[in-house]
């Protein structure tokens, strides 16, 4: 019989890991783990994929926004998360950004005058990024994508806290995943009910700070 994970019954939630990708640098838990500031976003993503040996050929078919989300989530969870502690439907994903899928929308629109690209069309919604993250990691819990002019930590904290309060999820990958052209910024964090040596309290103040500093 498998051992059931210990569940903290208090209402506190903790940020147990974080990952940021910004301006050619990848940070995991505050430490820079990959850097290539001269590459274009497309080159940067492919080089990071190869560097971290992600081994998921579908990555190459994704749009840049989904690549950012999948890469960020992979690095967020690597060495920080044991998926066996949760059922697939207990793990949620809540993301937000400012440009939705506009980067791919523009690329798709440019193909419309010739032959519209089906491979681009399927990425003309921002929540496809969440779909790609969930498919790769077998997450089946609640997920949502929100578009805000800028990062809204107040909303994010309230929304994710509500999901936990209603017992909809037991763990959540959440944060900001923005991309438009060569400008991008990803700040993701893993929220769980358990406390670890390096965890910080999941609250509005801490996620706002994490967004500002990229590395918590």
């Amino acid at each position, binding site marked *: 019989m498998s051992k059931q994970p210990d569940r903290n019954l208090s209402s506190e939630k903790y940020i147990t890991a974080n990952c940021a990708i910004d301006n050619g640098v990848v940070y995991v838990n505050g430490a820079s783990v990959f850097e290539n500031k001269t590459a274009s976003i497309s080159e940067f993503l492919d080089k990071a994929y190869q560097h971290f040996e992600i081994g998921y050929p579908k990555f190459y*078919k994704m749009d840049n926004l989904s690549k950012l989300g999948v890469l960020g989530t992979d690095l967020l969870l690597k060495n920080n998360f044991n998926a066996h502690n949760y059922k697939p439907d207990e793990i949620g994903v809540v993301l937000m950004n400012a440009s939705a899928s506009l980067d791919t929308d523009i690329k798709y629109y440019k193909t419309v005058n010739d032959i519209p*690209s089906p491979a681009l069309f399927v990425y003309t919604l921002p929540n496809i990024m969440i779909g790609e993250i969930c498919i790769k990691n077998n997450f089946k819990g609640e997920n949502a994508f929100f578009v805000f002019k800028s990062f809204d930590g107040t909303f994010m904290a309230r929304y994710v806290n509500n999901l936990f309060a209603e017992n909809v999820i037991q763990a959540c990958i959440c944060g900001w995943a923005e991309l438009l052209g060569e400008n991008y910024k990803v700040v993701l964090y893993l929220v769980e009910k358990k406390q670890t040596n390096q965890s910080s309290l999941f609250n509005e103040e801490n996620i706002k700070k994490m967004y500002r500093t990229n590395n918590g």
Partner: protein
Amino acid sequence: MSDLKKQIIVQLNLKDLKPEDIGDDQPLFVEGLGLDSIDALELIVLLQQEYKIKLSNAEDGPKVFQSVRTMAQYIKEHQVQK
């Protein structure tokens, strides 16, 4: 067929594959190369863009896109008819 394999790799973003990795008779879908329904649409686009061939009957798709060889055969037959 080598050129067609190169075109398939570019069109479908199969960056982890080289032309020699794709067998002439290897099934393109499911148990073979593992392509999906979006890839099938991209192969139709490839025929239009590179060879000006429109797949007139969608039901022909499974036969035409069975392998690189069947695709090459279809291209050959339809280019001759022009």
